[in-house]
């Protein structure tokens, strides 16, 4: 069974104590509050999404409970020119990048329009087939390098994803072509019912980078500062033409795999409880309170605002009229061949 997390690079420990000199960005109260706020918002959004699913108003949904620091930390390090390629559990990163809650709900509610975000137009939609977006990230990196935009492709997936050949093949080409691409692993210790230890004999997932001649490192994925700092360094390397990096972020999936899963079938409550002690929000809050005067009122206001925003998004989502059936033919091709055009017409507006 999965035990406690091994020691790894962190700036804040689980109790919010500063372990080593903070990077510049983490000495700025505003920055830290923004990071914290997005993590809280993500958690509030998660809860709402699950509630919607439980009441039949959303499809199967995978919560990011406990892993908010990873995708918020990663996304917060990225620039607009970069391209984010998320897996299905990185809601916080998508929100940070500018995808709206309403769009996320649309997607998880089973409506393609959720992928047509107004926000980061160049970002990829969620990738469901595990690890199959790593090759895209290599290609995006190739494209960005070719166009000389200075942008970097940043793909994120889970610990399970590291067992797929796609992950390996993509790392390999990123390595040998020195593509500007950063691969992040949200190692939440579980792939549905499969504990990390049974996924691979490798001691760390970061060490898999050795196979591609890439640098790989392990960071505490519950410390948003550590995640952002590691991502910063990886992005700098990529922008400097030094190629890709693999970052393993250690965290823990505090929730079921998705709303369709019942994790009590395969793991002990005690293990979950233990990991609640190291989750990412408390430590940052403690630090904010201790160092930056974060007050009870601030906290309550943040929660209230997050809930208001989430509720409003949910209401807009629920009020949206569905696409007409013929929308299934829209955008299949840039120009519909005769058969497709005929089908769309036949279906009418009903």
């Amino acid at each position, binding site marked *: 069974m999965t035990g406690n997390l091994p020691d790894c690079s962190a700036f804040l420990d689980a109790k919010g104590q500063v372990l080593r000199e903070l990077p510049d960005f983490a000495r700025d109260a505003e920055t830290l509050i923004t990071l914290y706020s997005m993590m809280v918002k993500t958690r509030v959004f998660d809860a709402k999404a699950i509630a919607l699913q439980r009441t039949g108003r959303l*499809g*199967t949904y995978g919560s990011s409970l406990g892993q908010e620091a990873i995708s918020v930390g990663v996304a917060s390090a990225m620039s607009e020119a970069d391209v984010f390629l998320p897996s*299905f559990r990185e809601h916080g990163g998508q929100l940070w990048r500018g995808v709206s809650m309403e769009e996320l709900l649309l*997607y*998880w*509610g*089973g*409506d*393609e329009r959720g992928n047509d975000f107004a926000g980061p137009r160049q970002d990829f939609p*969620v990738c*469901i*087939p*595990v*690890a199959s977006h790593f090759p895209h990230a290599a290609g995006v990196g190739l494209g960005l390098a070719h166009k000389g935009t200075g942008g970097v492709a940043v793909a994120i997936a889970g610990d*399970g*994803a590291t*067992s*797929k*050949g796609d992950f390996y093949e993509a790392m390999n080409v990123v390595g040998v072509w020195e593509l500007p691409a950063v691969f992040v692993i949200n190692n939440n210790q579980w*792939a*549905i*019912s*499969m504990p990390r230890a*049974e*996924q*691979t004999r490798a001691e760390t997932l970061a060490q898999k980078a050795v196979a591609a001649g890439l640098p790989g490192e392990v960071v505490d994925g519950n410390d948003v500062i550590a995640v952002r700092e590691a991502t910063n360094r990886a992005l700098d390397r990529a922008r400097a033409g030094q190629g890709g990096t693999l970052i393993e972020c250690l965290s823990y999936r505090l929730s079921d795999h998705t709303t*369709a*899963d019942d994790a009590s*079938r*395969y793991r002990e409550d005690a293990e979950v409880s233990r990991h609640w002690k190291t989750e990412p929000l408390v430590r940052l809050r403690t630090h904010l309170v201790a160092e930056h005067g974060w007050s009870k009122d601030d906290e309550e206001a943040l929660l209230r605002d997050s809930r208001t925003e989430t509720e409003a998004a949910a209401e807009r989502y629920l009020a949206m009229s*569905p*696409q007409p*059936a013929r*929308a*299934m*033919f829209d955008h*299949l091709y840039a120009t519909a061949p005769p*058969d*497709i055009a005929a*089908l769309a017409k036949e*279906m009418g507006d009903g």
Partner: protein
Amino acid sequence: MADLTMVEAIRMALSRALEDDPDVIIFGEDVGIDGGVFRATDGLMQRFGAARVRDTPLSETVIAGMAVGAATQGLRPVAEIQFMGFLYSAIDQLANHAGRLRNRTRGRLSCPMVLRAPFGGGVKAPEHHSESMEAMLAHIPGLRVIVPSTPARAYGLLLAAIRDPDPVVFLEPKRLYRALKEPVANDGIALTLDCALVVRDGSDLTIIAWGAMVAEVGRAADALAERGISSEVIDLSSLKPIDRSAVRASVQKTGRCIIVHEAPLTAGLGAEIAADLAEHCLTSLLAPVVRVTGYDTVMPYAQLEDRYMPDAARIQAAAQHVMEFA
């Protein structure tokens, strides 16, 4: 004889196979302690041990390829792909290896493996979880492709697939996993592979379907019967090889044929059946052979999937069209 759902019948067949034959092993993602995401293997690891029912890493290529290798050593691997949308990574192993190992070694090595995968829509699953790409598999020489349509059929066909000395892809219509129950005896009796089943006798037209569409066709046939149209319904069951003589015999009798499947129209398996009729039963045909299928577009997300999949209404409309043809 217990009333079982399809997923229970599948579990009973797997359990029976594990009991009867020590060479049967099961592996796939989450098939162990979790009992499979649909619970098809629930309790089997606990009962038969982790050496025989085993969780694999998240690697579809290896799941299929390891089954090939294990099958050559006298094991009978029953491997699971969690959803058909993730089976594409296994096609290389199926087409380049499983389907040809016996042929290319002139019978020296063989590949008695089963690759199970839930498939099809109708449960409002996330993207990539509702595909029906059985035609791609049915095109691969050397494979068998089986789809059950009821719990009892699932039990008997799965036992047959496991006992068969050649590779079988066993596709389970997830929409039927819990949709209905029927009495299933744990008698260890395998059904015969390679056979279609006439599930309803009729005289005016033949309707061919498989998996979840068989029930949909049944509903349509009931409604048609009320309007005095007598449908013969065939559950194709074996998508490769196709029981062509059963299909032809029925169409020779009725003179009309509709084929129903969830997969997209173009190059779907319905085409093969219609083409067979256009070659071998042309003079019997009193009306066009009509396919009622998923449309030639990407399976839409949950909100529109009902509008994508054939339903009784579309089947009835096609039947009406065929009956009125002159």
